């Protein structure tokens, strides 16, 4: 029970009036950062990093500084869901999967419910992850060391196979859409040889297509264009505007305990490995859809379809801090910036941090508990406020959304070209929706394409071209097998049905 003692000590460090005030400031800032697409958690933390520099030099200041920064991170994790649900615009990459059911819920006038479910499950995911960090960090850190390129590839493959199932859309449209995503992901610098590809000499294409620009266009702008066909009104105007909706949602949530557990597990695994919060949210959504009795209705506005990705994203986002602290490997872009922060303050993340900087580490862990509670309080009390945004008339809110989208697209790379691409993706999103080309596989392919290809080719370099490397040990072998089974499963059930003559 050493951990409990250390944790109690951590709470004593973290629980000062100043630190609690910083937590709330951080969470509010984070929510704002999360809401504005483009201004992601990594950016937000990086921008505020210099502020903490003076702070960290006071006694006990490093703890305060990391509390502020990590609370910005929690806030951003919470905030990403807000615009996903209200406007179908994911504020952060990991909240793309939240749009799949969150937005339909909002359209049905159940925005408050969707928000409450999203925030609560985010909290649950984070809480599970913090418990894992508290009690299992040494074991888990060792586990993360087992992951080399072949293992990473198998994890990405698993994400992909878990998400892609038999969809209602025509199969060749799904395939075309997915491959378009992979093609877009390949544009820019080849990660393994450094050669430029598919840039056709254009300097704008050097940076490739950023996932966020594509998503803002495809989902956000595309959705506004679709909504326009129906006339100038948002459908969410009947959203409930009081806090009762939170209580009602809480009554309903325990039904999804199994989904929550599964999603937390997926999230923790992906965070520690570190595979990242975005793949975690997709994987979790895919798994939930496959195993839920209401799986067919996913995508039409199921609370469970909000619970699954949000729990996993937050669990992954939180547990991603573990490899950062213990190994110095950031599990997410934001963790990378936090890592830079630690180095600037004079702390050296790594195996010895737990021993040499006990106060700091346990203060940080305690602040993860407290920061998430602070975050939950902030966002839940704001649910009616967020839902009220839907009552703003379309001709006012639509241009404001477009402006936010443009700012978001611009800030990704500080490039006007991206604003143009956003408009193009918007038209694409509109066309694809109308012609039944599914958007989700496209988006997932953009997210995973790059990473999957790099780890595949790294693995190939290591094995000198032997594909059998993906079955070379128990760990990688079992993940790969699991992925292939998941991929084949719909085909098997379909074949069985065919044979039986259904």
């Amino acid at each position, binding site marked *: 029970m050493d951990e409990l003692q250390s944790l109690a000590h951590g709470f004593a460090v973290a629980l000062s009036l100043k630190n609690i005030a910083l937590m709330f400031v951080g969470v509010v800032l984070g929510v704002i950062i999360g809401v504005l697409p483009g201004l992601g958690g990594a950016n937000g933390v990086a921008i505020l990093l210099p502020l903490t520099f003076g702070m960290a030099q006071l006694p006990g200041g490093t703890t305060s500084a990391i509390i502020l920064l990590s609370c910005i991170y929690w806030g951003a994790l919470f905030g990403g869901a807000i615009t996903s649900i209200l406007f179908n615009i994911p504020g952060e990459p990991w909240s793309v999967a939240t749009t799949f059911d969150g937005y339909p819920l909002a359209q049905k006038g159940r925005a408050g419910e969707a928000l409450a479910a999203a925030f609560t499950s985010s909290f649950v995911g984070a809480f599970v992850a913090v418990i894992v960090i508290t009690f299992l960090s040494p074991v888990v850190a060792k586990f993360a060391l087992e992951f080399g390129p072949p293992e990473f590839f198998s994890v990405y493959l698993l994400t992909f196979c878990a998400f892609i199932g038999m969809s209602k859309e*025509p199969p060749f449209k799904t395939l075309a859409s997915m491959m378009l995503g992979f093609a877009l992901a390949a544009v820019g610098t080849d990660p393994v040889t450094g050669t430029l*590809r598919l840039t056709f000499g254009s300097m704008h294409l050097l940076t490739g297509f950023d996932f966020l620009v594509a998503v803002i266009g495809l989902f956000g702008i595309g959705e*506004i264009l679709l909504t326009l066909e129906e006339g100038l009104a948002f459908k969410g105007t009947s959203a409930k505007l009081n806090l009762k909706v939170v209580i009602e949602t809480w009554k309903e949530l325990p039904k999804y305990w199994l989904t929550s557990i599964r999603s937390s597990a997926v999230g923790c695994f992906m965070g520690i490995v570190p595979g990242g919060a975005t793949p975690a949210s997709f994987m979790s959504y895919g798994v939930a859809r496959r195993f839920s009795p209401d799986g067919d209705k996913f995508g039409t506005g199921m609370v469970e379809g909000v619970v699954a990705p949000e729990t996993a994203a937050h669990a992954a986002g939180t547990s991603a801090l573990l490899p950062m602290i213990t190994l110095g490997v950031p599990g997410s872009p934001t963790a990378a910036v936090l890592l830079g922060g630690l180095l600037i303050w004079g702390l050296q993340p790594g195996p010895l941090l737990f021993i040499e900087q006990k106060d700091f580490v346990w203060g940080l862990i305690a602040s993860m508990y407290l920061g998430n509670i602070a975050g939950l309080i902030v966002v839940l009390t704001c649910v009616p406020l967020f839902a009220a945004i839907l009552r703003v008339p379309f001709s006012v809110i639509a241009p404001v959304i477009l*402006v936010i989208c443009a700012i978001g697209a611009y800030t990704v790379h500080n490039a006007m070209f991206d604003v143009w691409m956003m408009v193009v993706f918007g038209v694409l999103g509109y066309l694809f929706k109308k012609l039944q080309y599914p958007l989700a596989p496209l988006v997932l392919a953009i997210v995973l394409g790059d990473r999957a290809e790099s780890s595949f*080719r790294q693995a190939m370099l290591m094995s000198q071209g032997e594909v059998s490397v993906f079955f070379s040990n128990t760990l990688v072998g079992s993940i790969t097998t699991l992925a292939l089974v998941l991929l084949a499963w719909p085909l098997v059930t379909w074949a069985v049905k065919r044979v039986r003559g259904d």
Partner: protein
Amino acid sequence: MSQGPQDRPAFGLKSAEIGVALAFFALGALVVYDSARLGAKWAEDGPQTGYFPFYIGLIICVSAVLNLVRGLRMRPERDIGFVEVGQLKLVLSVLIPAAIYAAAIGWIGIYVASALFIGFFMRWLGKYAWWKVALVGIGNSVFFFLVFEGWFRIPLPKGPLEALLGLN
């Protein structure tokens, strides 16, 4: 014909399907072409730069052809309107200003462009009173200016007005 001019399809589903499939094919071909140029073989130490994009492009082309065939074989009775004239007008009434807005950001800066865009939208589509239009349009830009330039210190594109006011 009992359809009003606004309900008439602007163009059919069939032509939309065919158009998109052709665009996919062209894109796939482009990807294949550039990948082949870079080398798309399986070398001794694994795939070359263009290996994956080459096959991705190829699959895009194949699926585009299949989608094209599906589109061409679409029966006339299923070829309902892809978008009605009235709908298309509404969509374009936002898309065209949005495109102009995106272009204007480079010239006059994001803040002025945003204020004008919001103003145009509210006045033209929402028929709001001028003072409300001005309030929301300018208020929005001031808010974002304070957040980005002041708070987060992220420079967004600015134009002649900001230069005049000495704000950049």
